[in-house]
Each structure stands twice: as structure tokens, then as C-alpha cells.
């Protein structure tokens, strides 16, 4: 009976990310007992804000959590990942700045309402997603290769949109999205993530999107024979990811009120894939658990913050994360799992023999 409960807990998809979260928390608590302390301070504008490592993780993990939503759907439907998300964030962000600043690098006021700029960014993001989706769904190119095109060209296109200038948004209101709204001590990004989660929860609850993507990911042919259009579903997941990218771009650009084409959202594709993998979702497609992915995203941000705390340079972060990815995929590989299961079976038998 006891064993059954244990098995139920360990086989839950949320088990791995939760364990990783607890492990990281313990490491940090040992290193610094005051790690989880949250204090109320005032920021440059004189508004009360919450600060502390926990708030940092929640704040900076937002983009990743939003991307993880789209990436989970793409992974589930097409069995591959979109590696162009970082580059498309640069494109969408650049388009947003272009609309806001009207091609002027140092405008006095914003040239268009923020909502218009955001909508343009959404359209641009969805177009990029549609381009990837077209290559994957209609021309049947492997997702990672198809997205490699935008991965290379993306930052160049982003620089081209603004003529390689770095416009600065003059309106302080624009900085609210990636910072704090005056009077509210919680980072705005947290609310944006909550809004995204509510939207995707409603979509998954009310529509067949979740069921259809899983069906397409598990077996494309049989889902087609059952009346699902796999081409459309794959295309749709990429467009949804494009929308997520646009929201992430809003946050990223808003944090600095400007953009750096070669650095913005660098290596974020790796983190997004890692979040999906950490959530226990098969990278080869099929069943998915959205909440595990989102939790995975925050675990990744937790890891990043921890590494920074241990004085790891930002450029060297990638090496440590790569080790984590490799370990994760090794332990989730079917061959290794079978071997471990065999080993676990053999152990009690060997003990009996010895007795």
C-alpha cells in the first residue's frame, strides 16, 4: 500500500520539477539562510516595491514561463522544438520600437499608443510563427531545421527593421510592463504571466486544442484518419508560440525601454526547451502537461539566479545549463530507464541470494 502511494507520487509529472525546486531551495538555504527574505524597499521613482531573490525569480522567470506555454504546444504537436524564439523576440521587439519611436532613434514623445505597438508586435510574432509553421506543417521540414532559418536571420532582420539604431522609448509608462506600476509593489510581469496562464487554461478547458495537439503528436496518421487536420494543428501551435513570443518581447523591451539586437533574449531558446523537458514532457511529442512546463520555467530561473549567486559569469552560464540538460535527457532516455528498472529488479533478488 505504501509502495503504491510512493509510486503515484513519483510518477506524477510535477514530481521532477518540484524535486528540483526543493533541491535548489535547500542548496540556497544552506548557502545563505536569508535567501527567501522578501523586503519592501523603494525604487528610483520612489514607489514601494518588493525585493528579494524570490521576487527576482518570479519577475525574471516571466518571459520563460510565457514561452514555455507555446513551446509545450509546439513540442507536443510536432515532436520538435522552435529554436528561433530568441531571434523572433528580437524581431517583435524591434517592430514594437519602430512603431513607438516612428523610425526616430531619440523621439521626444511616443509616436503611437503602446497598445498599437503591442498589436503590431503580436502580428509580427504570429507572422514569424506562421513562417515556421508553414515550413514544418506544409513542407514537412524537421522543426529544428526549419526554425534554424529564423534563428540565423532573426537578429539581422531585427537590426534591419530599425536601421541598426537603438531607439529609446521616452514614455515612462512603457517601462511599467517590465517593471512596477506605481503603487503596486508586485512586479507587473507576475500579473502578465497570471493573465497568460488564465487564458491558456480557459483555451485548454473550452476547446479541443489540448486533445488535438496530443493526438497529432502521438500519431499523425491515425489522428488524420479520425478527422483531425494535423497540418492545421501544427501550424496553429507555431502561431500560438508566435503570440507568446510577442508578449515575452513586450516584457523584454520594456525592461530596458530599448533593445540590443545581439544580446536580447540570448540563449532563451535553450531555457525554454529545458523548461519543457524539466516538466517531464517528452521532447519527441505526444502527451504534455502545461503546468509542469510553467513550473519548469521557474525552476530554470531559480537555477540561473542560484548560479549568479555563486558568482558564475553570465557567458559561462550556458555551460552549466548544458550539463543539466544532458543529465536530464540521459535520465529520461528510454534505454537508460529500462536499464535502471532492470537494475532495481535485480537488487532485491541479489540480496535474497546473498541471504
Amino acid at each position: 500500500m505504501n509502495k503504491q502511494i510512493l509510486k503515484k507520487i513519483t510518477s506524477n509529472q510535477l514530481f521532477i520539477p518540484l524535486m528540483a525546486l526543493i533541491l535548489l531551495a535547500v542548496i540556497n538555504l544552506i548557502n545563505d539562510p536569508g535567501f527567501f527574505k522578501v523586503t519592501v524597499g523603494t525604487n528610483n521613482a520612489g514607489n514601494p516595491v518588493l525585493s528579494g531573490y524570490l521576487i527576482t525569480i518570479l519577475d525574471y522567470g516571466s518571459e520563460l514561463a510565457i514561452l514555455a506555454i507555446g513551446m509545450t504546444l509546439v513540442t507536443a504537436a510536432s515532436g520538435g522544438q522552435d529554436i528561433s524564439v530568441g531571434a523572433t523576440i528580437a524581431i517583435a521587439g524591434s517592430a514594437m520600437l519602430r512603431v513607438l519611436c516612428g523610425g526616430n532613434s531619440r523621439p521626444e514623445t511616443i509616436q503611437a499608443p503602446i497598445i498599437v505597438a503591442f498589436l503590431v508586435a503580436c502580428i509580427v510574432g504570429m507572422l514569424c510563427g506562421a513562417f515556421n509553421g508553414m515550413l514544418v506543417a506544409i513542407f514537412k521540414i524537421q522543426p529544428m531545421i526549419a526554425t534554424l532559418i529564423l534563428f540565423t536571420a532573426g537578429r539581422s532582420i531585427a537590426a534591419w527593421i530599425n536601421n541598426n539604431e537603438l531607439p529609446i522609448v521616452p514614455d515612462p509608462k512603457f517601462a511599467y510592463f517590465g517593471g512596477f506600476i506605481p503603487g503596486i509593489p508586485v512586479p507587473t510581469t507576475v500579473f502578465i504571466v497570471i493573465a497568460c496562464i488564465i487564458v491558456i487554461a480557459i483555451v485548454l478547458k473550452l476547446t479541443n486544442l489540448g486533445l488535438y495537439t496530443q493526438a497529432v503528436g502521438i500519431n499523425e496518421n491515425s489522428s488524420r484518419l479520425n478527422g483531425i487536420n494535423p497540418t492545421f494543428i501544427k501550424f496553429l501551435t507555431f502561431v500560438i508560440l508566435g503570440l507568446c513570443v510577442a508578449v515575452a518581447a513586450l516584457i523584454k523591451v520594456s525592461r530596458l525601454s530599448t533593445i540590443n539586437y545581439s544580446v536580447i533574449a540570448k540563449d532563451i531558446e535553450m531555457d525554454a526547451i529545458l523548461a519543457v523537458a524539466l516538466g517531464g514532457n517528452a521532447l519527441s511529442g505526444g502527451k504534455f502537461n502545461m503546468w509542469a512546463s510553467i513550473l519548469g520555467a521557474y525552476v530554470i530561473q531559480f537555477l540561473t539566479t542560484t548560479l549568479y549567486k555563486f558568482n558564475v559569469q553570465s557567458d559561462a552560464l550556458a555551460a552549466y545549463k548544458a550539463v543539466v540538460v544532458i543529465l536530464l535527457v540521459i535520465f529520461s532516455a528510454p534505454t537508460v530507464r529500462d536499464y535502471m528498472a532492470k537494475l532495481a529488479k535485480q537488487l532485491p533478488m541479489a540480496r535474497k541470494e546473498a541471504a
Partner: protein
Amino acid sequence: MKKIKENTSIFNKMSDTNLLLTITIVIFFLMYIGAVLFQGGGFTKPQMFFNILNANAALIITACGMSIVMISGGIDISVGGVVALVSMCCAVYLDYHDGSILGSILIALGIGLAYGLVQGFLVAYLDIQPFIVSLAGMFFARGMTTIVNTAPFNVEDPEFNALKLTRINVPGLGSVNKKGIYVPAYVEIGVIVALLLVVLLFLVLRYTRLGRNLYAVGGNKQSALMLGINVKRTKFLSHLICSLLAGIGGYVYFLHVGSGAASHAMGMEMNAIASSIIGGTMLTGGVGNIIGTLFGVLSLSTIQNIVASAGLDQAWWTGITIAAMLCIFLLIQSIVMSQKKKALKI
């Protein structure tokens, strides 16, 4: 049977490899002749062609490795990172540890070999998707490069610089410069290494058992297994060869630029994949040719030079043209393959 014969066109008579190879070679010559006719200038001089070779010797080597992995049905996007890691390690070894040339070559080969062993094992024996493995490999290599040394620097070792500046004149070719002095065309050592490797790999793919196994595994894993081919070992070897070539390519790159920096060879994996695809290697595996890859690299760099000399020399045009070219060739492949499938089904 009869119906298939009726449907035979030039398309179907040629094998996949030859069809895609022919397209590439024709496009390369058209492009180069077009550049000579319409842009003139540097393109009329033979040295222009050899400069393309000099600048891209490392790319030729890594692209050959990429083609081999792609023929066996895999992919390796860690090559750019490996090139950067190799140049940084060799640079640090030569300047800070007073190392010898031979030692640095061994370091380059060692890094390549280590990468090949680990990635090959993970892909072939643990059945992990090659893309994930090499994506992690790429980030690991880039991160390690900054851990080894953060700031970029030039190597000052005199022996190494002598080797770097060694020029081999091409007999019978050259041009008269502005002062009226005849300057023979030259290539660097890396080009000789690259061309030798191209010939060697061409022969290996064509005439050895390993080469034929690579095609068989990439074409259809299941039937290769039925034929008694050791699929896992073949996959393992393909990754081993690719990473080893990335190590060699890294040294050739290092020999060309003579410095170590974390930003070296940014996006080289992309160029290598693009060259292979333009050269007629199919992403789905089983189809490809090393000679095609050589022409793929040449086409890619020629188009870059055309873009640069056409006045569009802003950095972003290079990225956009490569991506556009890759996109076009991917679509051609996709269309050619679906046409062939249709023709076979009738």
C-alpha cells in the same frame, strides 16, 4: 511496372544525389560567371577565388563532417562551438603555457575526439535526439570557451605566426597589380588540408564499407538493420567523424585568424548545415555527396562576396542572404522529394 517506365523523365532517371549535385554545381557556375560579367572588379582576378578558399577552409572541413552526420540521418549543431573552443584552448596553450605547435594540434584533435565520443555515445547508444544533444554541446562549448578565457586575444607565438603566414603559390595563376608587378595567386595551408580531407572523405563515402553503411543507415534504418549493418555503431562513428573534423576545422580556423575569442565562428554550424543542404545533402538522410558540400560552401561564400561588393555590406545582409538561400534550397528539396514520391506511387 509499365506505368513507372512511362513516367520516367530526366528527374527520375538521375539518382537523388546526382540531381541535387548537378543543381548545385550549375548554380555555382552561373553565380560566379554572373559576378565576373556584371560586377567585374575583384571577381576577374584568380586570387578572389582563392581568397574564398582561404577564408572558408575551416568551413569546408566542418561542413564535410556535417554532411556525413546528415547522410547517416543525424545532425550536429555543436561544430561552431567546438571551433571556438579549439581556437581558444590552442591560443591559451600557445601563449600562456608556452606550448608547441604539435601540442596545440593534439589539443585540437583531443577536443574533437572527446566531443565525438560523448555525443556519439549519447545519440547512438542512448537513443537521444541528436539535435538536443548537440544543442547542449553547442552551449557547453560556448560556455567553456569563456571559462577558459574571457577576453579575446591574438597569439604572439613566433613559430605559430610563421606557420599562419605561410603561403603556397598556385602555379600558372596570378595577376598584375596596380604597380605592374606580377603577383602569383596563393593559398594557405588550411586549404591544402581541407582539399585533402575532401578527397579522402569522398573516397571513404564511395568505396569503403563504412561509407556505404552511412548511406544505408540514413536511407532506412530498419532495412539497414535487416541487412545486418550495425546501425548503432555506424551512427556513433558518424558523430565521431563529424566532431573530429570540427576539431581539425577548429585548428584550421585558428590558423587563419590567429586569435582566440568566445565569439569566434558564431553561427558556423548554420553555415555548415546550409552548405551541406545547398550541396545536395538531404536532411532526411541517405542522400548526399562531399563534392556537393564543397560546392555548397563555394556557392555560399560567393553569394556573400557578391552581396558585400554590391554595397550591401551592412552586417545583417549576410545573415539574411544565407537564411534566404537555405530556405530556398530546403523548399527545392521538399518539392523534389514529394514529386518523386508521387511519380513512384502512380
